[in-house]
């Protein structure tokens, strides 16, 4: 369980950001890419890699937040509902003449507010986050349907639509946003006091409190980050799809959790890094995309996804066990 301390220095930087423990997963990622590339010449192309990144943009944002939460010993099942709600909210705001920037601001603030409510239920009512956010997930999804009366709402604002459509230096804006978000939140997690506190709270909330760390506030921030990012993701998705749809992004939370765990963050809390999550998201989306490129029938996609998860995680486990 202890890593070799000799190479500490050489590795320490990589370790800090990517988590050298995750070499197993990197290998899994590479193996997967090689297999798909062998099976289809269209897999490992610039165009398709961009497809994968675009498809990752929503899951990636939600997974950043989920990483924070799981490190802090929490979990959030509401990101899918928040994203759906935000898309609809954005569309309604635009319909009512709000500009792109105000719309984005309002949507993200609304998301942060939802995160705050989640944390309030967890912190003050002491309801387990799994159940608390299952409850808010239902409530928020209901609200998403209510505010649009169940009907998708079309978006016509050109500026807003350009978020999902335009590219900067050939890179789609959603991908740029994702990359920026990862950079910001990797730095925040590894360098800031809030990030450090999150690890300590996840490691032992009681000890953290007695050392003067306001565990509730730390957890609250993590929930707000998750919901805020999910809301942003939902708003971007709405732009990409040209409409806000109340039923969109169902199951997003599960994909996010999956990516997080693939990336080596443990449910026990206090362990893992956001660099691992990057790999987790790439494996997940790269795999889904590969199945689609290969045009694997839907039913088999389910089976394959399940098997991938088990395979990737056991691969990592077996590899790390050998090392000890």
């Amino acid at each position, binding site marked *: *369980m*202890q890593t070799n301390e000799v190479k500490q220095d050489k590795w320490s930087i990589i370790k800090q950001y990517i988590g050298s423990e995750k070499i197993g997963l990197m290998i899994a990622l590479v193996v997967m890419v090689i297999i798909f590339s062998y099976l289809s010449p269209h897999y490992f192309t610039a165009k398709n890699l961009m497809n994968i990144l675009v498809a990752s943009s929503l899951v990636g944002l939600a997974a950043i937040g989920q990483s924070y939460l799981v490190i802090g010993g929490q979990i959030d099942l509401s990101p899918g509902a928040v994203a759906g709600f935000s898309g609809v909210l954005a569309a309604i705001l635009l319909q009512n003449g709000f500009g792109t920037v105000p719309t984005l601001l309002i949507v993200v603030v609304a998301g942060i507010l939802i995160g705050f409510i989640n944390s309030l239920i967890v912190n003050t009512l002491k309801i387990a986050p799994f159940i608390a956010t299952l409850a808010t997930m239902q409530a928020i999804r209901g609200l998403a349907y209510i505010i649009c009366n169940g009907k998708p709402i079309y978006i016509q604002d050109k500026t807003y639509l350009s978020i999902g459509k335009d590219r900067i230096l050939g890179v789609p804006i959603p991908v740029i946003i994702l990359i920026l978000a990862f950079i910001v939140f990797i730095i925040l997690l590894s360098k*800031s*006091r809030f990030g450090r506190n999150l*690890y300590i709270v996840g490691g*032992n909330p009681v000890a953290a409190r*007695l050392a003067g760390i*306001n565990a509730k506030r730390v957890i609250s921030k993590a929930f707000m980050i998750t919901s805020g990012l999910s809301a942003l993701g939902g708003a971007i998705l709405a732009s990409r799809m040209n409409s806000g749809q109340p039923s969109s992004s169902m199951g997003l939370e599960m994909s996010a959790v999956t990516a997080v765990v693939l990336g080596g963050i443990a449910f026990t809390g206090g362990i893992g890094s956001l660099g691992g999550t990057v790999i987790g998201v790439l494996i997940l989306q790269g795999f889904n995309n590969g199945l689609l490129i290969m045009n694997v029938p839907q039913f088999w996609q389910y089976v394959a996804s399940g098997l991938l998860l088990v395979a990737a995680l056991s691969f990592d486990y077996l590899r790390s066990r050998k090392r000890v």
Partner: protein
Amino acid sequence: MNNTLEFRDICKNFPGVKALDNMSFKVQSGEVVAFLGENGAGKSTLLKILNGDFQQCEGSYLIDNEAIQFKNPYEAIQAGISIIYQERQVVDYLTVGENVFMGNMPLKANGLVDFKTMNEATQKIIDEFDLDMKATDQVKHLSVAYQQMVEIMKAYNRQLKVIAFDEPTASLSNAEIEKLFLIIRNLKKKGVIVLYVSHRLKEIFELSDRVIVFKDGRLVDIKNTKETNEAELVKLMVGRDLGDVFNELDRNETFGDNILDVKNLSNHYVKDISFHVRKGEILGLSGLVGAGRTETIRSIFGADPLLSGDIYFDGEKVQIKSPEDAIALGMGLCPEDRKGQGIAPIRSVKENASMAILKRLTKFGFIQKKAEKEVVQKGIVDLNIKTSSMEKQIVYLSGGNQQKVILARWLAHHPKLLILDEPTKGIDVGAKSEIYRIICRLANQGIGIIIISSELPEIIGISDRIMVMANGEKKGELNRQEATEERILGLAMLGTDIGGSEK
């Protein structure tokens, strides 16, 4: 019965640590053998090898002259080897009976658990131990001391050839300790081999036939208890003379104004507690386990709600709603439950040492890593913390070294008032005397200290003044010159001062 237990050249390596190095000795049945050694000397590790929880890297052990290798603790139990771990291993939700019969609950003919037989058998053991509980009590409703006794009863309930106690008295009060000693002597009479790990020399002299002294994973010496004395043992284990620990302390004689003044404090557990601590003064809180000492200081520190009462800190009336507030004022608390409340086990030594002062180490929200490392390094050197690196997960340090890391955390904070709840629990004599020295040094710097300890010699030796509590109430105060074990116990148990000079 005539059993033997023999270790031959046992070695055990953990990454970066040689925990045991060529450990060899032999024990006869009917013997109580004590293990003595500094924190991290390898005592617990040897026991865990004996019961198959760890596997040795080299060497072997023999029971009744037969080499044996247990793959897991269960095999050891089957072979008559039971170990009471340093950490309590009870299940809160279950009853005493179910805990005592954990792993071998008796069954009725229909395949269901025979609760009647089980509870009767448990009740018998309870009576034998002379404890005030029932087999059907849920363990979560018992005091910590009683939970520890349940743990001991669990081992006692098995077929025994060898029983090992790893610091069993850390959370027991005198009454239970005496009962435990009685039990151990009975076991000895029955021919059971008893291994006994403790940092309390007094217990070792009271109980053991021989003492095995460990140092850095090696066996230093084996002594017949009757033929040795405390000074010799200490010298063997620490490698130098400690002298008279308390008398040689550099005490602070001049106290300043009140740093803390508590007036009529009440909470769910204690009522109407008033006392004060002066700058540079060491106030000892004494009492039996469960007297309410922890609950008193937790309320002061903002960890538990206060029902009524006023707190004055450094002359000003303060409202402390959370530990965060208390720390901001300049308090520090080293909690009694190290594993549950003191450390974040999977985080590094560095993170555990710096967690209370992160605000000071932060610029624009970001931690100054270099400054942090310097502070932590200073703590490691000052307190002589044994760790291969400050990045090591704290859970892999020995208990005593974990405790030192928590102390380092508060020293780095430069508190005005430091509260230490059982700071020497599970700590070796060498480290203890270091901790006493540190406490006195802090007092000399004008820091007020509150120390809670269940060890009377310690509380008498270190405190300038002692406040005695029982049943959630303050029973009296004794100053340094007045304090004797008898007078303290009189206050704690009878509520009266037999010395006649109660305040």
